[in-house]
């Protein structure tokens, strides 16, 4: 999020293309910097906030005088910020016998302010709730006596929610929850308060402004309506195609708890009307299986409106999802653990929201909580029905494939590949990949570390490992090929497996170029390949065919003499 200084620079930007909203800001502490932050943050939300700010501590003076500047400004929104510090000041000045009546007294006054505003203006009222101050006069006993400040403050926050339920144009902006997220020491800075009468730290201003803008823009109808989920390592731990249905981490297995809790969150979103879609690079039937059969899955097929699991690129799939749902990209949130996919989607789908999920899945939820992605201004029974309606719609539409120019995108990735034979440093990783690769694995020969050591020393075998790096980072060792010398000048591809993370990146072409060049230079005439079908490797059924190999009985052959290099954007390191 931008800093306050950066938001101030926004004030010099051109707001002319944006919708103008007249906002009145009234507070009982200094609000000048908050006003700057609000206008500056408006630029980020593509809103031109025309702000009128009441003089310091003039809330009631402005509201109860029909001829006041507030009413001649005639705002669309009124932001009211009555602080906990002033509340505490009032409490301090009361006789102690009256302390138990503070919340009720304030609540009456707030309701008076609201009804006066709504009688006179056609405006929405945004009221900041009270951030907690514990004056520690009663200790823990504050929770057991109406005479404590903390009791009154919490009662006031609670009663405010009840009032807001009844008053259609009253919206609570929950800065108390914001303070809970960042901690009071970050929310409030004593020296700033003492010197300026401002109860917000400079650091928190952008977050308070964003929280307010979330509400304002939701009131303009700008809402997130759909969350699109990746599957592997996003909603469950592990890779379903490789690890298998029974080994994905959800429920009690491994760090499954993190994923279960994440799924409960998505389920709650769905129940409150957010459409849930799936966009995953997987074989459709494999990807659906956990939703249907896994005992620990929280999300089920009936929770998903559109299910897109295939090997096409995600930008195309998301366009397809949008066509089915008929909603704007700016109302979509895409959650994926893979930085490559996130960037691919971000660069190809303008407006879509793609949070930078933290690396540790245990952090997903806490991070997502802070983003306040799913602001809304209403909740009804129809919201609960939405998923079913869209499911019907999705069944009508079949997925038609439209290809983005992926080539252009791949060019921008600056991919480079490190090719090495087996050595003592990469043997553990090779063994691991060999045991785990199920989908992109032509013959599914499993090697132990001992086998691998044998192969690397063998004179009849040639070994290759490929490590791929791009501008977003290092993908590590992702592909392994073992060639075996045969009589008659042929090289047999004993093993070729690859991690599915790097599909559609031109890696197959680069790998073939590498081994073809090697074979040619070493005096071999042909490359021979074989596909042995298993329950999981259907995706490479046509692997050799699509690489230009010709069929010869039950194997595939490629003539090295006339080999032409396959097109790709990977350079060798």
């Amino acid at each position, binding site marked *: 999020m931008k800093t*306050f*200084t950066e938001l*101030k*620079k926004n004030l*010099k930007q051109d707001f002319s293309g944006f919708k103008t909203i007249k906002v009145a800001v009234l507070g009982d502490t200094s609000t*000048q*910097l908050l006003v700057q932050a609000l206008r500056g943050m408006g630029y980020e939300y593509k809103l031109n906030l025309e702000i009128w700010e009441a003089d310091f501590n003039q809330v009631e003076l402005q509201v109860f005088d029909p001829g006041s500047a507030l009413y001649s400004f005639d705002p669309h929104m009124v932001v009211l910020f009555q602080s906990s510090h002033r509340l505490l000041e009032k409490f301090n000045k009361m006789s102690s016998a009256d302390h138990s009546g503070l919340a009720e007294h304030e609540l009456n006054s707030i309701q008076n302010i609201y009804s006066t505003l709504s009688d006179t203006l056609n405006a929405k009222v945004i009221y900041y709730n009270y951030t907690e101050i514990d004056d520690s006069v009663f200790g823990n006993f504050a929770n057991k006596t109406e005479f404590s400040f903390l009791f009154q403050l919490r009662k006031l926050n609670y009663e405010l929610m009840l009032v807001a339920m009844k008053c259609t144009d009253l919206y609570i902006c929950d800065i108390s929850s914001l303070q809970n997220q960042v901690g009071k020491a970050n929310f409030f*800075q*004593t*020296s*700033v308060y*003492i*010197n*300026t009468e*401002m109860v917000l*730290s*400079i*650091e928190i201003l952008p977050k308070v402004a964003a929280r307010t803008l979330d509400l304002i823009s939701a009131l303009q109808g700008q809402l997130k309506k759909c969350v699109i989920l990746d599957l592997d390592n996003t909603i469950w731990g592990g890779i379903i195609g490789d690890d298998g249905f029974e080994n994905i981490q959800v429920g009690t297995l491994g760090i499954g708890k993190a994923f279960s809790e994440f799924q409960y969150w998505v389920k709650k979103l769905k129940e409150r009307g957010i459409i849930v879609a799936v966009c995953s690079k997987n074989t459709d039937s494999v990807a659906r299986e956990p939703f249907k059969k896994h005992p620990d899955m929280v999300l089920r097929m009936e929770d998903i409106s559109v299910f897109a699991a295939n090997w096409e690129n995600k930008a195309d799939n998301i366009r397809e999802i949008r066509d089915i749902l008929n909603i704007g990209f700016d109302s979509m949130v895409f959650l994926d653990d893979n930085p490559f996919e996130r960037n691919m989607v971000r660069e190809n789908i303008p407006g879509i929201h793609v949070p930078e999920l933290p690396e540790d899945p245990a952090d997903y939820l806490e991070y997502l909580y802070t983003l306040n992605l799913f602001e809304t201004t209403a909740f009804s029974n129809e919201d609960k029905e939405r998923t079913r309606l869209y499911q019907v719609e999705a069944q009508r539409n079949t997925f038609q494939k439209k290809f983005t120019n992926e080539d252009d995108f791949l060019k921008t990735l600056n991919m480079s590949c490190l090719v090495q034979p087996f050595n003592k440093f990469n043997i553990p990783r090779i063994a691991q990949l060999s045991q785990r690769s199920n989908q992109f694995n032509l013959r599914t020969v499993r090697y132990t570390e001992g086998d691998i050591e044998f192969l690397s020393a063998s004179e009849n075998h040639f070994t290759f490992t490929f490590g791929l790096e791009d501008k977003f980072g290092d993908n590590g060792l992702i592909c392994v090929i073992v060639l075996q010398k045969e009589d008659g000048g042929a090289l047999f591809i004993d093993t070729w497996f690859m991690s599915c993370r790097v599909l559609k990146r031109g890696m197959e072409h680069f790998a073939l170029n590498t081994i073809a060049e090697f074979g040619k230079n070493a005096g071999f005439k042909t490359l021979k390949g074989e596909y042995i079908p298993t329950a999981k490797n259907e995706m490479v059924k046509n692997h050799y065919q699509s690489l230009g190999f010709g069929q010869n009985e039950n194997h595939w052959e490629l003539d090295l003499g006339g080999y032409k290099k396959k097109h790709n954007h990977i350079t060798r390191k």
Partner: protein
Amino acid sequence: MLKQINRIFTDTLDNEDIVITEATTASDVEEWDSLTHIQLVVAVEKHFKIRFTSREIQSWANVGEMLGCIQGKGV
């Protein structure tokens, strides 16, 4: 150090032309008012990883005194 503080001033007040000396006071810089003063203070705190007391913030007559206060905190 004066250079670093100058950088904080130009950045926070969004005016590249500001040149400060130890003798500079708030009245010498157009954008430097009571409101931006606290932003400068917080930016300086963040930059040098220090905290000023509320009294210190009110006490400086010019940039030089602020500088002295920063140095007094072991920077």
